[in-house]
């Protein structure tokens, strides 16, 4: 008998629900990337995959393996935490680059620099 078959039904349901909702959120994030009109709007939807998408997968892994190994297996939480630390670095770089390029191009959609008049001895 495979060890898969001895898991209680509720564990299988919970794991499946978590995995499916994770992929749904990732799908909606990708859809947002496709449907949004401008660069800054498109920056928001990938966050769905890196937050709730990753959380659901981590939670599914924790539930499944904790029951399978009959003890708490919590280290999957490190993935969302490491993602929360690293994702903002690239997001911030993209946002700064987007602002810089739009300002250089004279695009009226973006606000002027917020430091205007706040530096150079003022």
């Amino acid at each position, binding site marked *: 008998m495979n060890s898969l078959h001895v898991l209680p039904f509720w564990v299988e349901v919970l794991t499946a629900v978590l995995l499916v909702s994770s992929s749904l959120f990732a799908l909606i994030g990708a*859809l947002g990337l496709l*449907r949004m*009109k401008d660069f800054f709007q498109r920056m928001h939807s990938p966050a*769905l995959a890196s*937050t709730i998408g990753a959380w659901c997968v981590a939670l599914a892994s924790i539930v499944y393996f904790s029951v399978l190994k009959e003890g708490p297996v919590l280290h999957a939480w490190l993935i969302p935490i490491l993602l*929360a630390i690293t994702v903002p670095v690239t*997001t911030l770089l993209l*946002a700064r680059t987007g602002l810089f390029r739009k300002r250089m191009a004279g695009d009226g959609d973006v606000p002027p620099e917020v430091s205007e008049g*706040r*530096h150079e001895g003022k």
Partner: protein
Amino acid sequence: MKRLFPAPLLSLSLWALWLLLNLSLSAGNLILGALLGFLAPIMFAPLRPLPARIGRPGVALKLFFLVGRDVLISNLAVAWGVLRAGHRPPRSTFVKVPLDLHDAHGLAALAMICTVVPGTVWSELALDRSVLLMHVFDLDDEARFIEHFKSTYERPLMEIFQ
């Protein structure tokens, strides 16, 4: 001791992180993790000359759960906004938030929180750290948004880092 371990807390957490990631307490992993904890702070010392002072662990823990809750709520809001974008385009806009928090580490944590929560992206910080420009996916009421941002994230961070 202080020269060998300039950031003992960081060394200890890196060691624990390594052991947790490998899920093993074997001699090899203990040594590798300890090496990582010993070398990383020394190698990163030139990058961050300001030692962080972190106080109020209770406030930090509360903030951690508040951010978790807000991430869940705004995930649903952004997902919903994306799904009916054809019907009603999201009211995306830039918002200027006046800041009272000036500590570099506090601002780094604020940038992280602001970017991790879907629906808001940290875009620019004024050179004198007095104003923050951020992009909001779907803004309802600017004054209320700023008030929520300042009271939920900025004030606890000021308590933790100052």
